[in-house]
């Protein structure tokens, strides 16, 4: 969806606009929460809560084009808080099946790359919610450090530190494998 289109929908903020926004961001918001919670029931509740909070607080979103990233932050914060309340962290249950991998591993290089990719995915699943959050915002939403800091309401230094540690964790898992 084009940034201007998102901004217009947010300005309207009527039922139809919300539905369009929901359909555009439903899948990824659910996935972000699921990758933290690893539980479908909880994820459904959290996704609903995230959308409701987002629609009720749209006036707080400064840059309308960052709706997706903002929603991801709300969902991941809710998921993290849910984990804290439940006092448990589930990183390994209900891992999704690997999809989208290349089947034509006809060369050694491709096979190696697929293996590396799988290892990074595994490493991503082991990240803490805080680290997962910054990795998603940087590598999925392509946000800059300052933008991430503003969304998370932390200093750019904290974002850098979290990114550094997240990358360190990923490198660690790759190295162990």
């Amino acid at each position, binding site marked *: 969806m084009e940034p201007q289109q998102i901004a217009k929908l947010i300005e309207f903020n009527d039922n139809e606009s919300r539905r369009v926004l929901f359909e555009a961001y439903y*899948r990824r918001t659910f996935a972000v929460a699921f990758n933290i919670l690893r539980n479908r029931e909880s994820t459904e509740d959290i996704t609903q809560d995230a959308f409701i909070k987002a629609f009720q607080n749209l006036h707080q979103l400064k840059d309308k084009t960052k709706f997706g990233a903002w929603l991801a932050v709300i969902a991941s914060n809710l998921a993290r808080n849910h984990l804290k309340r439940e006092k448990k962290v589930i990183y390994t249950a209900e891992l999704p099946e690997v999809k989208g991998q290349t089947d034509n591993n006809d060369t050694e290089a491709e096979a190696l790359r697929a293996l590396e990719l799988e290892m990074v995915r595994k490493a991503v699943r082991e990240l803490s919610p805080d680290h997962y959050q910054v990795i998603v915002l940087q590598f999925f939403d392509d946000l800059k450090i300052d933008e991430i800091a503003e969304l998370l309401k932390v200093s750019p230094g904290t974002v850098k530190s979290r990114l550094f540690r997240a990358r360190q964790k990923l490198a660690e898992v790759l190295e162990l494998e």
Partner: protein
Amino acid sequence: MNENDKNQIDDNLIRRALQLEIESVEPPAADKMWRTIEARLDSTPVPLKKTVPVWIRYAGLAAAACLLLLFGGIGLFRVAQFASPASEYDAAAEFMAVDEEERLAALDPAESETAEEPLDSAAGTETKPDAPAEQQNKETETVTTAEGEEESAEDQITVAASPSAEENAMPLWPETLGEDYFFSEEIFLPPVEEEPLRVALYSGPEHDLLLVSSEAVAEDPFEFVEKIGLQLQFPINDIQYKDNYLFFLAGGYNGLVFQHDGITRAILAPSSTLNKEQLIDLAAPSR
């Protein structure tokens, strides 16, 4: 594959892995969830924007002003308490000059010539208690006029402000590395050994650097590199000693070990960004 490509692939791998992780999750039917959200939105009143009472804002301002006055007062007191001997000398010299003029005016010319010596020697000894005897004598001879006093004061300032060995030392975290990298924050890592390393992040125009500093004096560079590997949990490869510098590769980073003022330090840069010569430039003493 060059180092640049290698670093690029790392980012792309993470990006691709995240994309797959997100795409691989199958959410439940959107319609059902939308109906629930719609119903909840209709039933939940939109929260009103919280208004902050005006008096709270003023209370905050008043508290801030009080703190400012308190800390400002403490700061001024400390500045006054630890004022340099040179500034004390300036003040005393100024005071003495005024006093001397008044006294000279009260005396006739003949008496003023004889009165000059004790007055001058008083100015020289009282205001420069820390100066060597020889220097004090010299100033006693020169501080005979207002102009002479100014010259002496300048001498004193130069001595007091002359850079000591400590001032020349590279600070633990210099404000900048080279011209482009600015100190961002110190990163606290869990200690792996008895003498942990200290690590700081420096922000650059495109990439960040790490500056690692040893807590031990004159630590062996090779041991230091090993420690970096342990502390940062990076595999260390390709250690090379060249032109008095120790180069190494740590994870995806180019590293350079150098020593300054007996402290062993290392700069780590993403391997695609800086070559060895640029790392050496960054290792040059800065503040």
